[in-house]
Structures are given as structure tokens and as C-alpha cells.
């Protein structure tokens, strides 16, 4: 059987660069201090920007966890199925 390529997040540089960029955007150091207008549905504009970055962070990490991590999953699941079929 052909040896399957394993996926480990630490080996993929782009994940960590993307994560760093999201985190940098997630802290409001680049916005004018003290400003809060316009208020959109009562929420300061900058809080919406930060919230958007926070949600991107959640989505990104959730997605990377599922898609870029696969080391022993296939073996384990195959083994489980084998046990069930015995």
C-alpha cells in the first residue's frame, strides 16, 4: 500500500503567517485612539472590525484543525473498523 502523506500544522508556514496577520488585525493598535463613531446598531465601528477579526480567528483555527491535521487518523479509524468487524 502506498504510504500516505501525513498532515501536521506545524510544518505549514502559511498557517502561522496567516494566524499572525489575523492576530495583528485583532488588536486595535492601528485605529485612532478614543474614536467610536459611527455607531452601527449601537456598536462602535472599531468594535465591529475587532469582532470580525475575532470571528475570522475562530473560523480559521476551526478549519485548520479539521483540514490540516491528519497524522494517525486513517490508521486509527481503520483499526476501529477492524475491531468492529471481528
Amino acid at each position, binding site marked *: 500500500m502506498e504510504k500516505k502523506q501525513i498532515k501536521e500544522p506545524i510544518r505549514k508556514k502559511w498557517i502561522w503567517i496567516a494566524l499572525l496577520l489575523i492576530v495583528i488585525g485583532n488588536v486595535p493598535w492601528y485605529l*485612532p485612539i478614543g474614536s467610536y463613531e459611527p455607531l452601527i446598531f449601537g456598536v462602535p465601528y472599531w*468594535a465591529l472590525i*475587532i469582532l470580525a477579526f475575532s470571528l475570522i480567528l475562530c473560523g480559521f483555527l476551526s478549519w485548520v484543525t479539521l483540514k490540516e491535521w491528519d497524522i494517525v487518523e486513517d490508521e486509527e479509524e481503520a483499526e476501529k473498523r477492524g475491531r468492529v468487524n471481528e
Partner: protein
Amino acid sequence: MNDLVFAGMDGVLILSAYAIVMLLIGYFSGRGDKTLHDSLSNYYLAGKNLGIVALFFTLYATQYSGNTIIGYAPTAYRTGFSWLQSISFMTIIIGVYLLFAPRMYVVSKKMNFITPADWISHRFKSKSVTILAVVLMLWGLGNYLLEQLVAIGHAASSLTGGTIPYQVAVIAFVLVMLIYEWLGGMKAVAFTDVMQGLVLMVGIVIFLVGAIYLVGGDFSSATQYIAANEPAKLGVPDMMTSVNWFSMLLLVGLGAAIYPHAVQRIFAADSERTLKRSFSRMAWMPPITTGLVFVIGILGIALIPNLDTTGSEQLVGLMANEIAGINGFFYWVMIIFFGAIVAAIVSTADSVLLSFSSIVSNDIYGRFINPKAPEKKKVMVGKVTGVAAVGLLLWIAWNPPATLYEIFVLKFELLVQVFPAFVLGLYWKRMAAQPVFWGMLAGAIIAGVLTWTGYKTVFGIHGGVIGLAANFFIAVVGSYLVPLTVEKEAELKKIDLA
């Protein structure tokens, strides 16, 4: 919080119900498993066989304590919108897990690890590194547990309006916790976490609904009030706060991910698929947990204005009071919610205690005192020491030392110093024991001294982070100075995956 409208017998009733459910879950999870108490892995890690539901909820209920609600809402109240950081620093923990959990899971299964120190000891083969790491971990866990024990008492006594006095509340719930943990180990902890996590999630949502109802269903009326009265809480924070925000991301992210009880949940997963799916769901929890608590705190500014720092600590109770006054439905929901807060604190405390016991069993007794003892005996030693430690912590809680108080506040600051050894050691074969030891020690001392002398942050950066930087520097530079032997390199090939 001594005059809650729902104080009294109704609160006692609900709290008793929670206690009974926890005991039942503990009893049933331990029953029928005869090998539970004979094996470190079975007792402390549920046989490394936790499925997706139990694993997800035990991760959730352990990470989010009742303290998250009681403490974070007042912080949002005092600091305003910059407390949005509580969403990101809880999320970033998953990012830090991704740095090491995938490989750590595989290695831990291969080597049958019980505690994080198993890994440290396997990797560095150095008594001094292992002992220092164990001390830092026990210290961090002990202080964390102390904080939770104190919080149980405050929450329970305020729920019952003092009908159950503070100390009785603590002892009652600590006993419940000790009993179910004794009976079922990690299984009991994880299964009670399912209940505790669920009520916490639902409780926060209903609390928020009540608070929004109180401001007339209109969030913007709250922010208009803040704009008119305290515009600083609405505006973009100053640079120092932003620096502090970055520092928080580092400290909480790195610290919380390598909490021993957090790492042990990686060991306890039944499969990689289960672990992945649990983490993937955990990544979405901060917006609906700390995010909602943040909104509650912001609404509090408009609902109950002008509280000073001490007064604001009572915010959740004060708001619960008003919400309970809306109608009978909210009245009962608020009692259940406050019970949920107590349950959620217990669910964090139980995991911390279990981890504490496992380190005593496996790393102190099993590694250094009596390595040849049967596992059953090691488990027993851990359990008994755990009970004794809780006793000691309660004594400290009720007789707080006049000085040295700050020592008991240090958690993340010290724990996070294990990070370089724990994570960098997983990938970097050159990393050597001696520099790791000195780095860890230096980091812990810097973090300890800075916090102790009142410099919790320097220019917004936490003492723990400054210590960590020194720690990394010493460990890395030092490791380059130590020659790598061929045997050592061959030995370390074992941690390679492919």
C-alpha cells in the same frame, strides 16, 4: 450580593439538586468498572478512551469556569469595549494547541504518558528539569484550585442569600466534588462536565436575554448611555492597552494550552479524529461564552451605573437580581443559572484537582519515592494527597496570609515557563536539559519577582511574558552551546513521526 430577591430556600433547593446530580453521575461512571482504581491510565485518563461528547464538554467546562462569568462581566463593566480581547485570548488557545497537540497526541499514545512530566522526563532525561517542571505545575494548579474553592463559597452563599453560609457552602460542594472524583476519576469528571458545561452555556444565553429585556430590547440605548456618560469605555483604547492585549494573547494562549489538566485531555482522547473535532468546535466557543459575558458587562454599565471597583465585582448578582424580578420564569431561570455558576466552578476545580493528584501519583510518588509500587497504590496515594491538598488550601483560604499574598495569585506566570521545554523540545532535537533548566528557573524567578513586587505588567507587558522571553533566550542560546551527541540524536529519533 446579600439581598438577592431569590435568596433563600429556593436557592438551597436548586443547589442540592445540582449536588445530587453530580453525585449520581460520579457514582454511575465509577460503577461496574473494576479496573478503574487499579491503573493510573484508567483512573486519571478514563482509560484514554474519551469520546467526542465527553471530550468536548470536559475541554469546555474546564476552560470556562463559573469565575469566567462572575469575573469577566465586571471587567467588561470597568474597562468597556477593549474587553473584546476576552474573545480572542480564549480563541488563541486553540492556535497554541495546534503547535503541539497533533504530535503530542501520537507520542503520548506510543509512550503511554499519564502526565505532562512524563513527556518532560522522557525528552530531557534530567531529574532537575523534571522536578522543576513538576514544582511549577503543582504551584500553578494549587493556586488555580485555591481561587476556584474561594469562588464556590462566594457564589453559593450569595445564591442562597447567606442561608447557606460561605464556609458551609464551600465544604458541602468540596465534599461533593471529592466524593464523585474519588468514585469515578476522570470518567466522573468528564461526565459531570457534560452536565456542567451544558447548563453554563444555556444559562449565559438566558441571562443575556434577560439583560437585553431590561434595557428595553435595544442594545443601542445602552451604548448611547455610555457615549453620553463614559465615552472612554466606548472608544478605541490607548496604545498601552493594545500592548497589554497582545501580551494577554501570549500569556493566556501559551499558559492555558499547557495547563497540565488541559494537556491530559489530549492524552485522554480516544482518537485523533475525536481530538480534532473537539478542538474544532472549541474554536467557536469564545464568541458564545466570553463574548456574551462581555455583552452582559456592557449592558451592566447602563443598567447599574456608577459602581466602584469593589461594587462592580457584585455586578452579576445585582443584574441577576433585577432579571429575577421580571417574572416567575426569569426568577426560576436565575436560580438555575446561579446554580450553574457554582456547578461550572466545581467542574473546573475537579479537573484541576484530578490533575494535581495525578502529578503526585505519577511524578512524585511513582517516579521518585516508590517507583516499584503497584499502580493501585500510586492511585491511592494521589487521591489521599489530593484530599489533603484541598484541606490545606481551604485553611489558606480562610486564614489568608497578611503578606506574601501575591504568591498565591501566580498561575499562568509560572506555568507558562514550562512552555519552551514542553513544546520546543518536541521539534528541536538540539534542545538540551541544562539550558532548559536554567531558562525555566530564570523565567519563573523573573515572573515571580515582578508580580510579587507589584510590577504585574511593565509597559503593558505581563511579568510572565517577560520571564518567558528570558526563558526562551537562555534555553535556545544555551542549547547551541551544548554539543549534541550521536547517541542522544538517535534516541530522539523516536519522537519523529515519519
